[in-house]
């Protein structure tokens, strides 16, 4: 099952604070050793630009945890395993974390370290290991600093990043939607790191986003008892984004194909969502025999990941506008002011040209629109609360803030109206109709 750093730390805290803990001292110190590794790495990468109490205390806490971690030989155990996995994740995400992220992670790791050290003090006689008392003092200092310099909501989101479990495309029928979602975001991140996200990858991810949005919209409508129409607009926005990509060609041609790449992950995710949520009616409603809480529980984390996926796709379009990787017929590109002579010639003869800068404005606009509507849908889904509180609570809190921000509701309404205008021109009999009736 896919997991997050927050879930690992929560699991560690839960085990360390059980009423009748059964952990050995070697397991406890083993966990502190791993937490010390994580904190030391965070401090080395930098918590603040210069010297500060945050920076110093983080480094000192890391060192104290490492010292406590060497008190007993490592024999392993559940606390050690959870802390080890958490520390590995912190190390893995080093490249994507900024200072604000590192501070958010430090605060959560400090709390976990305090719980582990407190457990150690219960297991041992009070004077046996003063190193554990040092860990507690420094962990509490970190938490006290966090009271006056709290991490931002957007920084906390790094704790909610899904980490996929090892997965192969062949076992798609056994893959959960959550695992497939984590695998898809991971595959996109890998491709973007090497600047290798192809247009086919993009189209597959957009199609997956559309399928998730439609299912999430159907669940939200069924749970809230409201009309389905407004909740379906996000799926339609992704459809419009996919359509906007149609005019482009991938200039680079086929690169190395990854059997566990974006396309395979997107298809597996779509299959998993369809398996869990079932087929939607033409009006975008769930099948009547579907168990709503069960479907909602499956779709909830995937819906929470939708804005993450969407932000990657927006960034991909921005990147293409700089690199000129995509090509299109000059006639299909939006007109620009002071069109150069060679572009005028290309329009006249219908020649393909490299798409750069403003050439991708329309595609970008459709993706940004779908991205913001996805955040609104994720928030609406969480508010419907049919699946209980969200597992990725930092993400959910961020969506609430984003959607409630001044001017955003009006912007989402304008996005919805723009999607309605765009979708009205789709001509296929296979498409889901826009004039959706209420879900009830």
């Amino acid at each position, binding site marked *: 099952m896919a997991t997050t750093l927050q879930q690992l730390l929560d699991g560690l805290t839960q085990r360390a604070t059980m009423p009748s803990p059964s952990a050995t001292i070697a397991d406890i110190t083993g966990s502190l050793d791993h937490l010390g590794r994580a904190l030391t790495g965070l401090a080395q990468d930098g918590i603040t630009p210069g010297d500060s109490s945050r920076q110093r205390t983080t480094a000192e806490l890391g060192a104290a945890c490492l010292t406590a971690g060497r008190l007993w030989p490592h024999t392993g155990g559940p606390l050690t395993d959870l802390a080890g996995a958490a520390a590995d994740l912190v190390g893995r995400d080093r490249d994507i974390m900024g200072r604000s992220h590192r501070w958010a992670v430090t605060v959560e790791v400090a709390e976990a370290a305090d719980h582990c050290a407190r457990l150690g003090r219960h297991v041992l006689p009070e004077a046996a290991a003063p190193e554990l008392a040092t860990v507690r003092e420094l962990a509490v200092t970190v938490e006290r600093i966090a009271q006056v310099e709290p991490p931002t909501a957007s920084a906390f989101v790094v704790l909610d990043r899904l980490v996929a479990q090892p997965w192969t495309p062949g076992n798609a029928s056994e893959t959960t939607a959550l695992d497939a979602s984590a695998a898809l975001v991971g595959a996109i991140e890998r491709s973007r790191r090497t600047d290798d996200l192809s247009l*086919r990858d993009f*189209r597959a991810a*957009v199609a997956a986003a559309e399928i998730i949005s439609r299912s999430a919209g159907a669940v939200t409508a069924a749970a809230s008892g409201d009309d389905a129409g407004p909740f379906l607009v996000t799926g339609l926005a992704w459809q419009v984004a996919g359509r906007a990509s149609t005019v482009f060609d991938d200039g680079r041609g086929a690169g190395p*194909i990854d059997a566990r790449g974006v*396309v*395979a992950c997107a298809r597996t995710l779509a299959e998993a969502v369809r398996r869990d949520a079932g087929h939607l009616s033409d009006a975008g409603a769930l099948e009547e025999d579907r168990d709503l809480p069960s479907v909602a529980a499956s779709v909830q984390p995937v819906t929470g990941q939708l804005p993450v996926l969407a932000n990657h796709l927006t960034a991909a379009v921005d990147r293409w506008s700089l690199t000129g990787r995509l090509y299109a017929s000059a006639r299909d590109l939006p007109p620009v002011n002071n069109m150069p002579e060679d572009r005028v010639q290309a329009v006249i003869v219908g020649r393909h040209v490299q798409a750069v800068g403003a050439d991708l404005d329309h595609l970008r606009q459709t993706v940004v629109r779908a991205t913001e509507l996805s955040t609104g849908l994720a928030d609406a889904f969480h508010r419907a609360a049919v699946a209980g509180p969200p597992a990725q609570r930092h993400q959910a809190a961020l969506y609430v803030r984003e959607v409630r921000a001044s001017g955003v509701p009006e912007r989402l309404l304008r996005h919805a109206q723009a999607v309605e205008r765009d979708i009205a021109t789709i001509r*296929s009999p*296979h498409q889901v109709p826009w004039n959706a009736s209420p879900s009830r």
Partner: protein
Amino acid sequence: MTVDAASDPLSYAASLLDAVGADREQVPADIALDCLYAAELLELAGGRARTTPLVDGDPAASIRAAMGALSLLDDDTFAAGPVLDAARAARQALRRLG
């Protein structure tokens, strides 16, 4: 189109399936995914997708043409994992398209 079914069936089929997967004006998301996945697998098997128009502008006709091209492959090539999976994905797309 610079490839034809007889000389390079893998590339021919990959090109058509990629084109169907890109045509979001006519093709719903789930079918587009099937086709993009099939194209990806055919490239994994050695094909090379190139920009191509749909057969008569028709997604179903294009998928059928791609499937026809795959049927030209020798038994060993067709039975290779990626090609067989691609053939199945294409068949599923055609069935969903109705």
